[in-house]
């Protein structure tokens, strides 16, 4: 009986040790709860735009084409940064413009995937252009007109100017690059993937293996749920906010109707890269589903607070300026 007790004690002892070792077992490529690890601060800044410029006739482009385009981009930036001669006063009726180039961070290279440079983020349709319906003008026309010619009401200005979400489709989905602040922080916890979009400090909280919320709830950036397919995070977003139909930035202009379905795929392809793919199924705005992909590259850069609404002198200036002009 004594030796039986001893044997039991020894078994318990080894169980303890193995339990201890098991709890210490952490795979570097997985999170602590076993999901593929996508965490970190990432950027999608690049010179590649959503749609293919007309001077490129294929998705994959050569190094020579890239060098030529980068040289053009540098010349453009140089001109943008030095709009006046030394001592020259701007001319009346001139281009109001923005500010010096140092404030911007559009990226300094083209997207490179599978070793090849890309002329567009769009991969389908194969011409690299959005398959817009002609009826787009019914939505885009009034939005463009109001945005660039009128300042009657704050709600008529772009969402970036209103400081509600980032410019264009920076916050997505799909998450597209803009002129600056192209940073995203991914943090994972059991049952969730959180993507913090730098503009406007938006935390996209993706519920894993969950149902969508009711259709009458249409939050900014849509309602996202996700699941894992092997090593790939798949995120489906529906119920887009009705005021987010027209997303215009300098580098892309897209429509996203409330009923659209956006499917994003995130796959860690290396220590420093996530392959980000998406498809947009929006029959009201587009003739067919369109797709795109780009890498998210890791960066050592920190994300800083983008408290936009709190410092939005510009909105008051825009509206007050328009009222002042009306009085003249």
């Amino acid at each position, binding site marked *: 009986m004594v030796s039986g007790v001893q044997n039991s004690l020894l078994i318990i002892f080894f169980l303890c040790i193995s339990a201890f070792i098991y709890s210490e077992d952490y795979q570097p490529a997985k999170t602590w709860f076993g999901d593929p690890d996508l965490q970190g601060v990432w950027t999608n800044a690049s010179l590649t735009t959503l749609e293919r410029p007309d001077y490129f006739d294929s998705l994959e482009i050569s190094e020579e084409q890239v060098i030529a385009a980068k040289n053009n981009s540098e010349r453009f930036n140089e001109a943008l940064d030095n709009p006046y001669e030394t001592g020259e006063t701007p001319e009346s009726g001139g281009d109001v413009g923005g500010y*010096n180039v140092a404030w911007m961070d559009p990226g300094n290279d083209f997207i490179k995937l599978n070793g090849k440079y890309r002329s567009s983020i769009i991969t389908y349709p194969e011409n690299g252009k959005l398959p817009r319906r002609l009826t787009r003008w019914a939505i885009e026309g009034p939005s463009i007109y109001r945005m660039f010619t009128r300042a009657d009401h704050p709600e008529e200005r772009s969402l970036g100017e209103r400081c509600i979400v980032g410019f264009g489709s920076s916050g997505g989905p799909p998450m597209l690059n803009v002129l600056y602040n192209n940073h995203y922080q991914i943090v994972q916890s059991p049952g969730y993937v959180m993507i913090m979009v730098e503009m406007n400090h938006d935390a996209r909280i993706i519920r894993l293996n969950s149902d969508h919320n009711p259709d009458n709830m249409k939050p900014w950036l849509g309602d996202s749920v996700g699941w894992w397919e092997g090593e790939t995070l798949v995120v489906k977003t529906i119920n887009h906010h009705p005021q987010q139909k027209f997303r215009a930035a300098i580098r892309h202009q897209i429509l996203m109707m409330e009923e659209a379905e956006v499917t994003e795929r995130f796959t860690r392809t290396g220590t420093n890269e996530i392959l980000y793919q998406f498809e947009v199924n929006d029959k009201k705005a587009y003739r067919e589903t369109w797709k795109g992909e780009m890498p998210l590259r890791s960066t050592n850069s920190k994300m800083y607070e983008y408290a936009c609404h709190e410092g939005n002198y510009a909105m008051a200036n825009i509206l007050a300026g328009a009222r002042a002009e009306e009085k003249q």
Partner: protein
Amino acid sequence: MINLIYKISAIISFSILSLNISSHHAFTAEFDANAPINITGKVLKVEWINPHAWVHVEVEEKGKKTTWMVEGGTPNTLIRNGINKESIKPGTVIVVRGYQSKGKLCLPRCIANGRDVTFPDGRKVFMGSSGTGAPRDGADPRERR
């Protein structure tokens, strides 16, 4: 025929928006293209805020002092390039060229965009870590973990 219509549609939309590429979103709505400015003054303070940083500049002309608020861009890019709240000290003399806001009451301050902001010797006040801007898109392996 349909393809031609789509192509024309695309060209029209690109043209409309291209007109504003260098004008950059809100600026044409906020500032008066017929009111150019070229001012030299001392920095009073810098508000390192979003969506636009603001440089407060005191300009003295014929004994009269006027305060200007000069609009810049998002400070986040510059902060990532090493700038901080001590970088531009009050009293620094700068030259601002741009356009005054459409509202010209100057109550309490005049407002303008800093289309080009330099030191009196012509060097840019707002610089990237190398030359004019140092875009970070992760392409430089030195930036990575």
